[in-house]
């Protein structure tokens, strides 16, 4: 048995060029498979951890998925706002530790503008519990100051000190707030969350922009220049949503009920983790499709291996006949072929894993910076090991075909190969 395996290894080594090609194909396919799996897991994780440390997201009554879409991903428009008084009532509730108001509706060249308080930069958490970091500058303090997410700054080429103007509405073609330009005072580090695509300004700035507006359009004949806005009361009358942190997590359902049964106006509070999971169910299908495609690529690689082994059999008829004459049984010939296939598959799978591990180290920061994609540089987890196991098992099954053929051949040929 050991001798047969040693011979199988030596024989395989003598055909290393053709087997090497099959091996490279398998290794690349496995790299692809594992990369897709890793991206899938990481995308899910970074998606479902787009906000963390927030116990409740509060908005006007609507669907929980829709609330998450606009409050966290700043996509789509809110159907309704929350009154400032309602927000203050919730924010000062004894169970509430902190609350951050969110006001949406404006945009800058297609990127959403978020009006919030400066507390946002201190309190917002994503991932396991990471906070926001500034690569340049600091949080806004004045009314017409803005903090940019990393993608906004990178794509549009903004630096600290640049001036930008906002547009009303979410499209690029909305009416402009050109009379009230903003100074970029800070740029955030990449997070792989919607924060990267957001322009952050103070809540007061949103009020200031709309002082001379009514019903979504500039008030005809009225203009209030930027230098005069300070004379007005800039406390907003309405906000879009709020992030709420509780003193004790155990109060979350009690607090959710309090918000959902709020007397002043119809409100909705959702647990972000649960709602994000729900949302993922609807968008995660793409990832599963990708995984299925890469599994097919692996199958193609393994069929290539089986084809290589089968094609090589004819040239190896004499080799197999010699082994038969020396006392090898058909079972041992079968074992030799299967061992060869298993060896190539296993080596290919491990090489693929090594490629991914080595490749993801330099690629991970680049992926996060360029595409906002989080790719973990970790040792393979349970799921990945299971996939590797499945690849090796499939390779083993694929090598049964040439093994069976060699078995038949060695019985038919006996000691004298027919060729």
């Amino acid at each position, binding site marked *: 048995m050991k001798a047969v395996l040693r*011979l199988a290894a030596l024989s395989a080594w003598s055909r290393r060029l053709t087997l090497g090609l099959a091996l490279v194909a398998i290794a690349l396919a496995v790299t692809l498979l594992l990369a897709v799996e890793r991206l899938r897991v990481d995308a899910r994780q970074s998606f479902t951890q787009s906000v963390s440390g927030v116990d409740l997201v509060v908005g006007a009554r609507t669907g929980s998925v829709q609330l998450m879409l606009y409050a966290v991903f700043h996509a789509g428009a809110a159907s309704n706002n929350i009154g400032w008084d309602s927000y203050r009532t919730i924010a000062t509730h004894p169970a509430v530790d902190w609350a951050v108001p969110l006001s949406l509706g404006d945009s800058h060249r297609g990127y959403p503008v978020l009006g919030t308080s400066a507390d946002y930069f201190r309190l917002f958490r994503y991932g396991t519990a990471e906070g926001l970091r500034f690569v340049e500058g600091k949080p806004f303090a004045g009314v017409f100051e803005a903090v940019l997410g990393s993608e906004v700054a990178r794509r549009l080429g903004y630096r600290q000190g640049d001036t930008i103007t906002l547009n009303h509405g979410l499209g690029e073609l909305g009416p402009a707030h050109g009379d009230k330009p903003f100074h970029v005072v800070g740029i955030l580090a990449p997070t792989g969350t919607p924060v990267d695509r957001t322009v952050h300004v103070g809540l007061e700035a949103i009020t200031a922009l709309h002082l001379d507006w009514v019903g979504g359009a500039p008030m005809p004949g009225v203009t209030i220049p930027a230098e005069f806005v300070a004379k007005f009361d800039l406390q907003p009358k309405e906000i879009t949503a709020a992030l709420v942190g509780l003193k004790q997590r155990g109060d979350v359902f009690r607090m959710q009920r309090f918000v959902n049964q709020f007397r002043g106006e119809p409100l909705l509070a959702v647990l972000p983790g649960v709602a994000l999971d729900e949302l993922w169910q609807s968008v995660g299908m793409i990832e599963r499709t990708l995984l299925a495609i890469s599994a097919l690529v692996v199958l193609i690689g393994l069929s290539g291996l089986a084809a290589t082994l089968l094609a090589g059999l004819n040239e190896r008829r*004499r*080799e197999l006949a010699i082994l038969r004459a020396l006392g090898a*049984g058909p079972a041992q010939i079968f074992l030799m072929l299967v061992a060869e296939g298993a060896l190539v598959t296993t080596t290919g799978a491990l090489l693929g894993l090594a490629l991914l591990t080595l490749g993801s180290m330099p690629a991970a920061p680049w992926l996060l910076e360029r595409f906002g994609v989080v790719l973990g540089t970790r040792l393979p987890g349970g799921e990945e090991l299971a996939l590797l196991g499945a690849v090796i098992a499939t390779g083993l099954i694929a090598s049964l075909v040439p093994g069976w053929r060699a078995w038949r051949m060695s019985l038919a040929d*006996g*000691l004298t190969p027919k060729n």
Partner: protein
Amino acid sequence: MTALRITDLVFRWPRQAAVCLDIPSFELAAGERIFLHGPSGSGKSTLLGLLGGVALPQRGNIELLGTDITRLSGRARDRFRADHIGFLFQQFNLLPWLSAMDNVLLPCTFSTRRRERAGSAPRAEAERMLRHLDLDAASWDKPAGELSVGQQQRVAAARALIGRPEILIADEPTSALDAERQQVFIDLLLQESAAVGAALVFVSHDWRLAAHFDRSIALQEINAAAREVPA
């Protein structure tokens, strides 16, 4: 004891009407060296396959060293072949990706008996045989595929003889050699098989080689199937 006794052997290939081999009786004494004449198509390869136990006759017995191998299981026949028979073929006898030395030692990895009979150090025994067969030490560790045809045949002979098998079956082992080397190789083979005490079945289509052997037989003489249907 006889090395080989065939009685009432009938063999027919599957899905073929004609009987290929019909050998009522054939015997080979221990240590006897015979020349078996068989032109191609005479059932020669089939007979060697039967002797090696890789094919089974439809009828009759093949007794090797007192064991009827037709009654053994497939695995046991493989084992028997590894333990007691040395094979030597035309050319391309060796595994080209193994060194000459490893090729010689192959029977010892497949058969415990051959390893034990090769002495306490099989490699030393292999070296002794290769030296005796006039193969210089420089080529021992070369891949067998890089050796000349003559060198390869000598390595193959050493492989067939290591561990002193009782029966040596050589199938046209000299067909790739020129006349002068044929002579030398046959002398070597006779001498070596005598040294290990093996019975030798030397199969060839070339009658000129028959002179060297104890006994010469044409396969047609012992094969009744060949007489019924004139070839």
